[in-house]
Each structure stands twice: as C-alpha cells, then as structure tokens.
C-alpha cells in the first residue's frame, strides 16, 4: 500500500504551494467555525459585472487550490453539497471553484466506502498515513508528487480512537434511519418544543453559517460610484427575518418558531424527500457554535421519542 509519513506531510503541502493555493483545514479554528464550504461557495461572491451599457461579464475564478485535512463528516458534507449544486441544475459559480480544487481528507479510520474528496489520508497510528485515491484528479496529483510517498507492506491500522465525539456518533446513528427521522420531524410541526425554541433561539443564523451543508443564499445588485453594476450572492439563513419575505412585505414564516422549525424541516424532511438523505452529517458544528447553546440532538431525541409514542397509540 501507498503511504505518507507524518513527517512528510508538511513538506508535501509546502511543495504543493508552488502550484496551488493550499488551505490547511487542520488549523482549526483560525476561521471561527466556517467549514470548507466557504472555499467553494464563499460567504459573499460577485457573480456578474456590467461596466458599461450592454456589456455583462461573468466573474471568473481561475485560482487552483488544495483543501487539506477534511474529516469524514466534512468530506461527506462536501459530497452532499456537490450533489445539491448539481441537481436539478449545475451551479456554475460553485463548480468553477470546485473544479479548480483538489480536496484531501485526513481521517482516522478506514471507511467501508470513501466519504468523498479526491484523495484521503487514513491514519494508521504508526506514523504513516495510508493513501486512498478517489478520483482521477487525486491520482494524478499523487503521481506527480510521488517522492513524498512510499510503498510499504499492508498492515492493519493501530488507531484505537477514530476521533469522533460521542455526540457525533449518536447523531450519526439517528441519521441512519432517514425515513423515520423525516416522518418524525414532519409530524412534530405542532410539537411544543418549537414554542420553547422560539424563546431560546436568537435567530442569528450562526447554525447555518457553520453548517457544512446549508447552502441558501440571497442575491444583491448594486451600482457603485463609478457606474459599475454588479450582482453578488451572499449566504442567507432561514432563521433570519428577510428569508421568507416576498414583494409586498408578506412573510411566510413571521416568527422564530416557524423559522427554526423550517430549518429542521429542510434538513430532515425536504433533504430526505429530495435527495433520499437528511442534510446533516453529524459534525456538531451547530451545537458547538450556537450562541444560545441549542443542541439539535436533544431536540431530535425528544421528537423521535414522542413520535414513536404517538405511533403506538394509533
């Protein structure tokens, strides 16, 4: 098997810097909880520019870059985001960045199926990382930089702790039964827990900013002082007040209770209906960064418990 020694990773990344911009995701957090989605779908992104009448230019992005060090949930999230940005229509701006990028995972346990990324480094616990190649792009990169890698005899991993929190493990177990989860969350619309959330949730939108899958955005146009017109898209959050507002001022979700429930609905019900799986990978970011300390696992446990009880009564 092909491996890289832990002492060579830094040199490998340094060598990559000659050809690519390298974002090392291990240095976490230098960026306040924002996940790797920001490299492909920036918080604010210019999409079109018109400098004079009749001309309209699409903003091009040509920089080649490597995102290094994504965990299993982060890789899974990116794979999901790729799907969302492909179906039903391909998102040009996402893919012009995504197409320019090489994603390298760094995980502690060899998975049954690769969670995503172009290359995955699996920690063997003996100072070496096993190299798994997922795409042609990844394979080419390894070939080009082969001096950093070595061929060794197959050996089982010595890693005992896969480095996933108990919270994530429990959450990921719950996510496995996507249909039950979707039914329960849909059923819970009038559950009293959403009333409680209305007095707890600050409506600040942090959960969606730090979520590796949340992808809703709003579009803003402006004309600057030189007469240049531009259109940009900017992350939006369904817990914010303008999100479901339409022309004339009507708001489909006028209270935090409805907005917060909608976040759950999109993640666990619509995600299941549209893509067959919930839009959550159990990374725990929303729990970690919520200023109000809301724990979505606790909410889901309550809903699932009550849903199961309600089903028995019938």
């Amino acid at each position, binding site marked *: 098997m092909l491996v890289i020694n832990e002492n060579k990773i830094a040199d490998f990344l340094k060598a990559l810097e000659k050809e690519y911009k390298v974002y090392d995701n291990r240095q976490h*957090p*230098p*960026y*306040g*909880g*924002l996940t790797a989605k920001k490299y492909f779908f920036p*918080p*604010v992104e210019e999409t079109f520019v018109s400098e004079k009448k009749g001309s309209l230019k699409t903003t091009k992005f040509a920089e080649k870059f490597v995102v290094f060090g994504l965990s299993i949930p982060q890789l899974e999230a990116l794979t999901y985001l790729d799907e969302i940005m492909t179906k039903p229509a391909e998102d040009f701006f996402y893919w012009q960045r995504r197409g320019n990028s090489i994603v390298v995972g760094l995980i502690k346990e060899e998975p049954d199926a690769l969670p995503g990324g172009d290359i995955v480094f699996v920690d063997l616990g003996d100072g070496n990382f096993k190299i798994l190649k997922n795409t042609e792009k990844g394979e080419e990169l390894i070939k080009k930089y082969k001096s950093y890698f070595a061929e060794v005899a197959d050996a089982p991993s010595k890693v005992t702790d896969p480095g996933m929190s108990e919270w994530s493990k429990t959450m990921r177990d719950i996510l496995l039964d996507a249909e039950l989860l979707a039914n329960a969350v849909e059923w819970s619309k009038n559950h009293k827990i959403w009333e409680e959330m*209305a*007095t*707890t*949730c*600050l*409506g*600040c*939108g*942090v959960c969606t*900013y*730090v979520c590796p899958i949340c992808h809703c955005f709003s579009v803003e146009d*402006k*004309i*600057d*002082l*030189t007469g240049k017109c531009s259109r940009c898209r900017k*992350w939006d*959050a369904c817990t*914010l*007040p*303008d*999100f479901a507002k339409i022309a004339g001022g009507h708001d489909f979700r006028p209270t*935090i209770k409805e907005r917060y429930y909608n976040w759950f609905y999109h993640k666990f019900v619509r995600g299941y209906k549209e893509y067959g799986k919930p839009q959550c990978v159990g990374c725990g970011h929303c729990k*970690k*960064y*919520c*200023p*109000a*300390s809301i724990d979505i696992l606790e909410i889901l446990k309550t809903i699932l418990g009550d849903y199961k009880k309600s089903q028995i009564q019938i």
Partner: protein
Amino acid sequence: MTKPKVAIYDFTDCEGCEVKLVSLRERLLLLENKIDIVNWRLGQERFDAGPYDVTIIEGTPITDYEVDLLKDLRKNSKVLIALGACAALAGVPGIMPEKDRKFWYEKIYTAQYRPRGVDAVPLSAYVPIDFAIHGCPVDEDEVVKAMEELLSGKTPTYSGNSTCFDCKQAGNKCRIRDEEKPCLGPITQAGCKAICVTGGSPCYGCFGIRKEANISALIKKLKTITDEKTIERYLTMFHSRTKEVNDGKK
C-alpha cells in the same frame, strides 16, 4: 441631470462619523462628482440654505436649538438620514437616564451650572427619518453603500444579517460560546466587519438592533454567564433609549 443637493449637519457628538466621511478619501471625490454638498460646517465654507434633497445628520439633538433645527431640516429635506449611533440610537449621550441629569449636572459642573440640554434621544424621537447609517463610528463602506443606493434610485435597506455573520467571516472565536463572555453580536445588525470583537472587545450593538432579533432570548442566555448589572451595562451602552431593547428586558 442636476446633482442632488446634500447637506451635512451635526448635533451633540464627537464628530467622529464626519471624520469617517472625510476618510472616504478618493471615494468622497467620486461621490462629489455625483452630488452637490451645499452645506457642511465641518468640511467646507459653503453653507447654502435649504431645501435639500438629502440631509445627513450626525449627533444627538440635545438642546432646544438642536431640536428646532432638526424639525426645520426635516421640513426642508426630501430624504433625512441619521449618521452614526448618536443620531440613530442616542448613542453615548443617551446612556444617562433623563431623571438623573440634574444630579450629575450638579455633581460634575456644580449647582451654578445652567444646563441647556433637555434630554438625549435619537432623531427619530422627534421626526421620522428615512434611513440610519449605523455605527460608532460608521463604517465607510456602509456610507458608500447607502449613497450608491440613493443615487441609483433605491431606498436604502438594512442588512438582515447578524454581526455573527461578520464575526465568523473575520475568523473570530465566539465570545459567548468559546470565552463565556457577554456579547450583543447575535442581536446586532451586520456591516461593521466585526471590528470590535476582532480587536478583543465585546459587541455593544452600535450597529443597531437587527430586525426581529430575539432580545429576551439573548438576555436569558447572558444570565447564564454573567450578572444582571453587567448585562444592563451592555444593553445601555448604546441602547438605553431603544424601544425593542427596553421591551426585551421585560
């Protein structure tokens, strides 16, 4: 097309937001190509009388003279804009409750002092305003944005995002979650680029309370990390006269 006539006035304040206008530098020159600044005490020697298309007012109306001038400017302006926290929120002058003014006047300036100040409340307490450019001081980009929107015939709009959005982009740790320190970021409007938190200070909400923010929920959360006196100090730094905040405390 004739250029819109713009007047810039200041009431009681530190004039820091007007310095921010000057520090637009090249962009102020670009702006001058599109507008005609016909009255600006701090910036030029031309003081044309109204009516004006746009009047930008910095500072808190505190004396009777300032209150009368404000009412007059409202009548003479198509668009009236509050510039900075003092004009938009009553700001620092508003920290002191009206009932305590007499006590502090005597303590600070002695009993001989004859105060001219009536009270410190935002412009909107006396006249309707069309837009507020928030901040203590204002952010240059926010000023330009409001001007660009007005010049392109739009009504300027407030950002629905929270300061947390800026803070996350700036790569900051969360004061509330990572440091267990109070912060008003989650209920405050974005636009400041999280300059205070980035520099190690709390957010006191100078960018104005975000639309439909859950103030009472933030107070509930802050009570788990600090005492009520500290929370009150945070909420009165800029918002002792903000209705939503006072309602949220109840």
